[in-house]
Each structure stands twice: as C-alpha cells, then as structure tokens.
C-alpha cells in the first residue's frame, strides 16, 4: 500500500463526495428500514406510525421509542408463510447456483482454452444478452414456455411427450429463468480466474505423470477456487432476493422472499411488515455478503 502524502482539500473531496453519497443513500436507508420494521402499519401518510417528529420535543421522542415494537418480527416468526418463503428462496438459490456452477464452469473453461483472439469475441457474445433487458429475456422465456409455445411444440413433434406439459408457474421454470439470467455472472469471474491460469503448471503436472482428470482435480480446480467463490456468491446472494423471475415464471402461489416483500408492500400496503421481512433477509445474507466483500477486496489487493 502506498504511503500517504498529506492531501490537499481538493484531493480529499475525491473521497468525501462518493463517501457522503453512499452514507446518505445506502447506509442511512438501512437504518430507516430497521426503524420502520419496528413500527405499526397505519392508514395515514406515511402509512406507518410512529413518525419521528423532532418538533414534539423530549416527550415526543420518548413517546416515539415507546411506540416501537417487535410485533412484525413476531408475526414473521409465527406465520408459516414467511418461513416457507425464506426456505424456498434459499433452496432455489442454492440449487440454481449449483446448476450455474456445473453449466458455467465448462463454458468458462472452454473459452479460456481457445486461442487468445477468439476469447474477447466469445466473452462479448456471452455478455451481450446481459445488456438486453432482464425483463425482455424472461419475457422471451414466457413465450417459449407457454402451454402452446415452441418448446412444447418441439417436444410433442419429437414424441418425447404426448401431452404438452405445463411449464409456467412451476419451480422448473424459475430454475430455467435463473440459470439463463445469471449465467454471465458465473461465467465471467470463472473465466477471469481460469484465463490467468499458467499453462506451464498443467504441463508440469502432466510431465510428472498426472492423468488428465487428476490434473483438473489437483491443479486446475484448486487454482480456480477464488473464481468459483466469487461466481457462487455473485449468483447466490441476489438470487435469494429475486423478484422478476419468480414473479413472471413461477407465479404467486408459492412465493420467494422477493415476491413476499413486494406483495406486503404493494399488495397489503403493510410497509412495516415488508421492512421487517427485508431486515430478516439482510441478516440471513450478512454472512455471505461479508465473505464476498472480503474476497473481492483481497482479489483487488493481490493485483
């Protein structure tokens, strides 16, 4: 780390401006969510109570804290729909991340092994769908997975099935949508690590008598571990809170936690409950988020 010469005022602004922005617009909102989660829903503007009012003086502040309660958290703990929603989200996220790893690794590995000048093109091709809207791509899958859509047409034509099966509003559809959308997030970090892999290490292992599968297991896999961790975390954490994909492809019968928050907020207009669900979700994800941050910082320092 370079040593710090004294910074001029203008130079310190380089740090202070984005810092202030993030404090105000990232950190403070979290504190507000926490506060709202301790409030009650109300038919009012804003639709919760108590409202923090400095003008009410000490008495007002005292009353404010007295009105806070953990009711919403009790609700989450007692009503099974919430617990089921959390579990389903983690389940789906874990399973899809696994699929993503199994699908993404060969692709990343294959791209890393092509001649240099092809790699840039292939990476652009892999990332290009990401630049088109997620909504559009999921919508595209809605088209395909419809009862009378092309997928079923193909399956019936190939005599794989007799009756066109229902794809939409199933977990399978969610898996397809998630893997489709998050593939670049798995492939890119894996590719970045595999691309740096020193070929001569593999050649040395072969020279020392390792068969190909063993070389992969003993050399390639461990050396790409940082890419695997990055890819896994980059996919798992956001998938847990996904909204668009399960909403369009999975239906609302058995919602994931992102849908639950949405429904509490926009459907029931119960902001405090939504906030509480969000707080619990953040607590669930804190550990993997910290691991991801740690990993990301170390990767940067290493360079």
């Amino acid at each position: 780390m370079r040593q710090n010469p004294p910074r001029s005022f203008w130079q310190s602004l380089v740090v202070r401006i984005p810092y202030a922005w993030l404090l105000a617009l990232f950190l403070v909102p979290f504190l507000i969510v926490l506060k709202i989660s301790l409030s009650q829903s109300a038919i009012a503007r804003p639709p919760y109570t108590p409202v923090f009012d400095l003008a009410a003086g000490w008495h007002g502040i005292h009353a404010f804290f007295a009105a806070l309660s953990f009711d919403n958290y009790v609700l989450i703990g007692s009503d099974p729909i919430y617990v089921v929603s959390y579990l389903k989200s983690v389940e789906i996220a874990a399973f899809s991340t696994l699929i993503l790893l199994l699908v993404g690794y060969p692709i990343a590995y294959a791209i890393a092994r092509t001649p240099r000048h092809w790699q840039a093109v292939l990476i652009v091709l892999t990332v290009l769908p990401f630049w088109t809207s997620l909504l559009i791509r999921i919508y595209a899958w809605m088209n395909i997975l419809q009862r009378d859509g092309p997928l079923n047409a193909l399956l019936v034509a190939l005599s794989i099935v007799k009756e066109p099966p229902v794809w939409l509003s199933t977990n399978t559809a969610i898996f397809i949508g998630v893997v489709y959308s998050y593939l670049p997030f798995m492939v890119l970090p894996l590719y970045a690590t595999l691309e740096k892999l020193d070929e001569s290490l593999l050649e040395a292992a072969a020279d020392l008598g390792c068969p190909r599968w063993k070389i992969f297991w003993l050399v390639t896999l461990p050396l790409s571990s940082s890419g695997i961790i990055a890819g896994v975390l980059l996919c798992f954490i956001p998938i847990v809170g996904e909204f668009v994909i399960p909403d369009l492809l999975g239906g609302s019968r058995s919602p994931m936690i992102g849908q639950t928050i949405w429904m509490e907020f926009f459907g029931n207009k119960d902001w405090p409950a939504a906030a509480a669900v969000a707080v619990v979700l953040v607590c669930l994800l804190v550990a993997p988020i910290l691991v991801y941050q740690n990993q990301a910082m170390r990767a940067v320092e290493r360079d």
Partner: protein
Amino acid sequence: MRKVSAVNLAAIAIGIAFLYLPIVILVIYSFNASRLVAVWGGWSTRWYAELMSDAPILDAAFISIRLALVSATAATILGTLAALALARFGRFRGRLLFAAMIYAPLVMPEVITGLSLLLLFVAFAAERGFWTVAIAHTTMAMCFVTVIVQSRLVGFDMSLEEAAMDLGATPFATFFAVTLPLTLPAIAAAWMLAFALSLDDLVIASFTTGPGATTLPIRIYSEVRLGVKPEMNAVCSIMVGVVGVAVIAASLLAKLSGGERAAPAQP
C-alpha cells in the same frame, strides 16, 4: 497456438445457443401476423405499426432513456471518484466502511435497495418522480462503475504517473494528462453498463417512482404479467436491436482505437 478440442467447442456452441435462442425466438414472434403464439400467421410488421401509435409506451421509452442518460453520467462521475479513492489513496480512515458500501450493493437483492431508498424518500417527504428514480439508479450503478474503473486503475502502471510527476506535472495535471486518457476505455465501458442497468431496471424503479415517471420496464411488466402480448414482442425486439447495435458499434470502436494498450511497457 492451442487446438480447440471438440468438447470445448461443443460446450461453447451449446452455451451460446442457449443464451441467444430465446431472444431469436422473441424477435421472430414479433413478426408473427397472428396474435396467438401457437399459430404462425405469416410475416407482418403490424405490431411495430401499432407500437408507433401507442403513446404510453413511447412516453415510457422516452422517460427511460432520459433517466438512463442522467443516472449513467452521474454514476460514472461518482463511481470514478470512488475508484480513485480506493485505488490511489492508500489506507485512509474509514476505508473499510467505504469499501463495504461499494461492494455490498453489487450483491444486495434489488427489492431491499428499492425498499430502503423509498423509505428514505418518504422519511424526508421527498416528492417521488423522475429525480428520485434517478438518484436511486445512480446509487445502484455507481458501485458497478467503481468496480470496473478500480480494477483498471489497480492494473495501471504506476511508474507512468510517477514519470509524469517527475517531469513536473502536479497530481491534478497528472490525472488529466496521463491517468484519465489511459483509463477512458474502462470509464466508457462503465458508463455503458450503468446506462444498461438503468434502462433495464424494474424493481428499484417500481419502488422509487412517482406519478408521471413510468419507466419502460414498469410499463412492460404491467402488460406482460398477465400474459404474453404481441406488441410487447415488438417493443422488446426493438430494444434488443438497439442494444445489439450499440454494443457491436462500441466493440468496433474499441478495436479501431486499440493498438496502444497501456500495459506495462515491455523492454
């Protein structure tokens, strides 16, 4: 020159096909004269024509583009400052928290960031509309910008900056004469990413928008959640086309201006 094995080739081919097939199908169906997916009614551009007279969609598109331009630019400026701070300012006080605030939004589920920002705006009785969404998008995108620009700055040959200072350039002059020109491709790529993120965003916009600021994704979503709509196919195909052209143009531009790569000089 490595040989590409058949397995590798197959993996890549299948992967690419998987990624592009749905989009291709979407575009094809946007030219389907029949309203129903099951029936192919022949090639037609009627949905595109209907699109042109659909005022709410066009309004939403216009708003989305303006929003994306504003938030992408703001996010790029803020994100570049943050990247500079992380890459060049050593261990300043509060660096750990700063870095945590940069990396957390990258993985945080959008419903959480959307919800928290809305609650912030409500708590400060801010009028929700175009600017609240713009602020929200800027905050979300700046973290991506920071990551991209920072990785470029970290891999930057420090001796170039030292050489500039040795030759008499103040840190300010060094940034504009040496660091910025060589980091420009990364900054441009980050801008484009921020633009795409804003244009595409549904969840955060839904939480933080207000009357009169309906973005394109919000409008598309409200139409399609009830089922497939052929006009939507047309809208989406246009967006895909625009993005495709833009990305290809950007890649060609990068290739043409390339040749001098600011990698550490080889002897």
